[in-house]
């Protein structure tokens, strides 16, 4: 009798403590991006040999091996930004790539997060116009929108974006969002 009362009291107090915390977090989205370099080395002739995956990517090793045919996956960087719906956040990626993620809304029906994703590459010196120096002395550059996509991602889910060439391989991004 007394134990049950104490247990109920503890549960009630914990609920009081946690519910306001979750209420505060409502309306915000945590976006996380992991940059991966995928490559196929010249000495990896044996197609049956298992691809080497950076230990920092152990959580994705199985999926990377099953989805792609590259032989080496290296961790490059990771970023985590907490933002509000309607507010874009920018992740600076290796080799002048950047990823702009704008969570737009949380679907009431199935809890998916609708978001606009833009992958931008800052191009420098590839074209004659870009070689011209600007007035402030810095080399001129322009931004290419490599990819723009609107997705609805399950809350807490991950989507893989990849393909742009980087030094020695291609860039793969693991984008996760939780609202």
């Amino acid at each position, binding site marked *: 009798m007394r134990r049950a009362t104490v247990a109920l009291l503890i549960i009630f107090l*914990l609920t009081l403590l946690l519910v306001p915390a979750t209420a505060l977090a409502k309306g915000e989205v945590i976006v996380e991006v992991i940059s991966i370099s995928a490559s196929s080395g010249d000495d990896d002739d044996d197609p049956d040999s298992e691809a080497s995956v950076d230990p920092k990517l152990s959580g994705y090793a199985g999926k990377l091996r099953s989805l792609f045919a590259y032989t080496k996956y290296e961790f490059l960087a990771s970023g985590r930004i907490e933002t509000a719906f309607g507010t874009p956040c920018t992740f600076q990626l290796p080799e002048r790539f950047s990823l702009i993620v704008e969570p737009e809304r949380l679907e009431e029906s199935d809890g998916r997060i609708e978001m606009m994703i833009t992958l931008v590459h800052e191009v420098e010196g590839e074209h004659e116009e870009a070689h011209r120096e600007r007035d402030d002395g810095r080399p001129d550059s322009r931004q290419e929108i490599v990819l723009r996509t609107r997705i609805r991602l399950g809350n807490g889910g*991950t989507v893989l974006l*990849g393909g742009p*060439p980087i030094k020695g391989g291609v860039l793969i991004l693991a984008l996760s969002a939780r609202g």
Partner: protein
Amino acid sequence: MKMARGCRISRYLTAYADNELDERTRRKVDRHIASCDGCASELDSIRASDRIFGAAPKPAVADDRWATFRIDLSQALDEVDREVRRKRARVREARPVYGTYRRRVLATAGAFAAVVFVAVALGPLGLFDQWNRNANECVVDSIETFSAGYTPMFFTSEDPEMTVIWVFADEVEGGVDGEGPGAR
């Protein structure tokens, strides 16, 4: 004339013979006997039996026997009381910890509160996402590029948790032997 068998009045006949009925019932029996040969005959039998037993000699019981009889009776009743108390104690011992109704109600309420707590407090934190296979599914509504030399596509694998959006670059081979993602 009516017969005694089946007469409702016949059950009063013994008490009538012993003069133990109230006045109203006694008058009722009187009227019935006057018209029912069966009951009148049965009443005669009862009175005859009473006369026979009343004439028989009463058994003699010694005074000391009555004294020991009272003591024995008292002891026997005490023993019955003790046995009843022992049975009640055994029933109490056999009950589980949460055997009483109030404890069962409290335990059920506690379990329900715990479930509600887990669902309400921990659900919004996304701790249940790993149990929900659809939580990670991704729907691609639109996909485009504004750069020459890139071709964007998206792939859904058999694993509903993994969607791949891939930008094919013209100058770079993708994956092994230029097959790109999903080569396996």
